[in-house]
């Protein structure tokens, strides 16, 4: 036996796959080779350690639902429902028939836009969309309305123009009066100013005369004394 051959047998040895003779041969060979013994012991120890690892179990049990069973159960449910609702008496059957007809009529009506109306003593039944109702005025009515509106507009415009003219005249007269008043006030003010100026001039002239007389008097007196 060689070392390589011994290593090939390690797995079978560890998992009990060797016959007794081969097992004994391997054990004897390994005892003679410490490196092989160390390797084999290490692998066995590794196996022991791997067994220490815990594992978690599934938390719930899977169940595969049968699709055919689901279809069957749905059909059976429908049959049970129908048998429960199915009328047994003649009156019940008549009621179901009437209800079915009304239901069918409503469904058909909703799908075809059924319109039931009564107008001018006539009953009308229409399918599909209803024609649009006449809304608005005739041409003559429109013309009459336009004429009325035009007349009202003309009257309103005349009143407006007249009022505007009256207002303008009043404003013009007021402006003229104001202007005249302003001119009168201005004239009065000017006259007062002229009068005041003349008075000042008169007073000034008088004062000059007085001063001139005084100066002349002093001159005459001086000349007289010098003589």
């Amino acid at each position, binding site marked *: 036996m060689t070392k390589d051959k011994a290593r090939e047998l390690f797995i079978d040895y560890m998992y009990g796959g060797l016959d007794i003779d081969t097992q004994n041969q391997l054990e004897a060979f390994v005892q003679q080779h410490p490196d092989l013994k160390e390797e084999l012991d290490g692998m066995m120890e590794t196996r022991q350690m791997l067994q*220490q690892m815990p594992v978690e179990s599934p938390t719930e049990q899977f169940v595969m639902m049968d699709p055919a069973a689901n279809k069957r159960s749905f059909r059976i449910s429908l049959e049970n429902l129908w048998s429960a609702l199915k009328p047994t008496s003649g009156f019940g059957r008549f009621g179901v028939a009437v209800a079915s007809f009304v239901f069918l009529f409503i469904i058909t009506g909703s799908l075809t836009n059924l319109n039931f109306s009564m107008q001018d003593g006539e009953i009308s039944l229409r399918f599909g969309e209803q024609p649009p109702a006449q809304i608005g005025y005739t041409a003559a009515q429109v013309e009459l309305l336009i004429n009325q509106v035009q007349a009202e507009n003309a009257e309103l415009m005349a009143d407006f123009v007249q009022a505007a003219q009256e207002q303008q005249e009043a404003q013009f007269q007021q402006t003229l009066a104001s202007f005249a008043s302003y001119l009168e006030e201005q004239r009065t003010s000017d006259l007062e100013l002229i009068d005041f100026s003349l008075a000042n001039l008169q007073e000034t002239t008088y004062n000059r005369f007085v001063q001139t007389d005084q100066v002349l008097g002093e001159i005459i007196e001086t000349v007289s004394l010098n003589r």
Partner: protein
Amino acid sequence: MTHMEDAQLVQDFLGGNHQAFNKLIGRWQDRIHHFAYRYFANNDDAAEITQKTFIKAYQKLNTLDDAGKFGSWLYRIANNLCLDELKRVGRKRATSLEALKTAPQTETERAADSALMRNEAIVLLHKALLQLPTEQRMVVIMKEYEGLTFREIAEILDESENTVKSRLYYGLRSLKKTFDSWNINKEVFSYD
């Protein structure tokens, strides 16, 4: 595995007895759930994989050639779904495992309480298992946790028995190296 009962239930289902399939679910749900749980270490992921497995089995059961191999066939479906899921989220998981490569040793050393150490060790066991290459991890899970025979595993994986044994050998060796590098040994689990 009681192949005869499975085969009979499969035949009953194919004959129109829907409840036979629910009996098959009852017989296999725990094992498929545990199998998926070893992959993802997450109960929700395991439940989802289990559910998908049975739905697929329900839809494809009429394609099963040998009713006696229902178990192997079911594991193969679950295994393929696990691989698909791993491909889908592989990058995310790989990233989280990268961070673990340096963390375990210091965390383990810091843990003074024995119970805490044991819990940490269990977490690291799982992480180490997830770090294995997919082919090795599948074989380790099927053999160590599901107790399948080498022949059954070979059937599920469509490989030879020798290939299965070889993967198991390298898987166990790789786990041993990882445990050594993280300072995890069997004494950690004897502190109860």
